[in-house]
């Protein structure tokens, strides 16, 4: 039972802690799990999150940065002033919980539709784009020499090649994706002026937001070294606007506000590169939707959700056409 192992674990690293209660899995795949629980402490319960790879799944697959890197990056982000949960403990073999880490749990909302529609967030919504610009600048400002050495570097050229290979592996022809791949190859901006830490998945779902603003940036699984404009382009992808298509930044703000927040924090925006990464991001989400369809067909669980995400690839096709071949234009 995970609560017994967690209780032994917290008693070892946190003075005064006597056990845990309320352990519940929030999300789980074959290789990675997220659990919430409360640490029982004489000063009051402490909300915590466990991120772990169960035993036998230590290696990070594909693009993933790995749980050790995630913990290190979250800590570095915290120190750089980026809203982040504190990392409380790195799992050791003695913990018998697999590999991973325990972090502070931050309360707030991650569900885009609530953030975009609920009255609780009405006052903060107009300020989020600018705030996220400042946060992105904080992430990109983390000193290179402090970063984990195993972080991989991903250039635009390499990302185009990876997306092409993945899309082709599905064996299903998509003329609109081909058009986007050509466009990307022809508009590859080359190496950025400065290679920085890139969050890699800076969007709704990975941001904890409260009525007071952004409380935490989560999920460093796709972090890498690369073009900082990638994060600004990804958060503008239409798939994360949830219907608010005229507010490019997460459905709540304007690019100008995002850029102003970024530049106010002392970093420079290259709007053409941001646009390039928005196209790349739109295609990337489309390819990920197709990947869901493959996993639906190949995996034993026949997940209906995955199957239906496969039918959302066409959303990215219309968004790519709106970006690359707008109607009414010559």
């Amino acid at each position, binding site marked *: 039972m995970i609560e017994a192992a967690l209780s032994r674990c917290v008693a070892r690293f946190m003075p005064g802690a006597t056990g845990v209660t309320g352990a519940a899995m929030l999300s789980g795949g074959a290789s990675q799990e997220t659990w919430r629980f409360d640490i029982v402490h004489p000063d009051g319960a402490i909300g915590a999150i466990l991120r772990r790879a169960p035993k036998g799944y230590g290696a990070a697959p594909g693009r993933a940065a790995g749980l050790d890197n995630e913990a290190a990056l979250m800590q570095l982000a915290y120190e750089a002033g980026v809203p982040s949960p504190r990392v409380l403990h790195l799992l050791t073999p003695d913990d018998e919980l697999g590999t991973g880490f325990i972090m502070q749990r931050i309360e707030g909302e991650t569900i885009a539709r609530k953030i975009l529609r609920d009255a609780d967030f009405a006052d903060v919504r107009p300020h989020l784009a600018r705030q996220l610009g400042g946060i992105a600048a904080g992430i990109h400002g983390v000193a290179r020499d402090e970063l984990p050495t195993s972080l991989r570097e991903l250039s635009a050229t390499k990302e185009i090649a990876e997306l092409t290979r993945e899309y082709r592996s599905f064996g299903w022809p998509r003329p609109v994706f081909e*058009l986007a791949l050509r466009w990307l190859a022809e508009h590859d901006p080359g190496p950025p002026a400065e290679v920085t830490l890139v969050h890699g998945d800076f969007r709704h779902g990975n941001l904890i937001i409260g009525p007071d603003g952004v409380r935490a940036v989560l999920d460093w699984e796709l972090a890498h070294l690369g073009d900082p404009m990638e994060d600004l382009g990804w958060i503008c992808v239409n798939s994360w606007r949830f219907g608010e298509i005229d507010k490019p930044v997460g459905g709540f703000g304007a690019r100008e506000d995002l850029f102003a927040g970024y530049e106010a924090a002392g970093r420079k925006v290259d709007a053409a590169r941001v646009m390039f990464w928005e196209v790349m991001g739109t295609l990337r989400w489309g390819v990920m939707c197709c990947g869901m369809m493959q996993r639906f067909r190949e995996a034993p669980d026949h997940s209906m959700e995955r199957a*239906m995400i496969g039918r959302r690839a066409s*959303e990215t096709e*219309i968004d790519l056409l*709106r970006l690359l071949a707008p109607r009414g234009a010559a």
Partner: protein
Amino acid sequence: MQDEPTPAELAKAVADFLRNDIAPLISGHQGFKLRVGINALDLVARQLTSAEQGEAAELARLKALLAADGSLSDLNRALADKIASGAMDLSTPGLKEHLWQTTLDKLAVDQPNYASYRREAGRTDGDA
């Protein structure tokens, strides 16, 4: 000849039952999954009702664009190859209109409530 009701009518009847009579009784994660399932049935009903006509028009456009004969899958593959090689691009007469019409027809089945689709489907200028 198979009898009536049609598959589309059956799928719609099941979706309506789940939506109106069952969904209000179920909450939480199972409720979420139920809604996904209802959406899937609605999608199936839309595809059974409207895809045939769209795909016939798509096939005709592909034959004209490529000056070739073949199945929808063969010709889409041929078009994808031509775009990948640079033999066709947005300056190719008819390509942009074809991609737009094909994509709009896909969205009409897949996600007719998607905001980008609603906006583009509502355009009246006819300038693809």
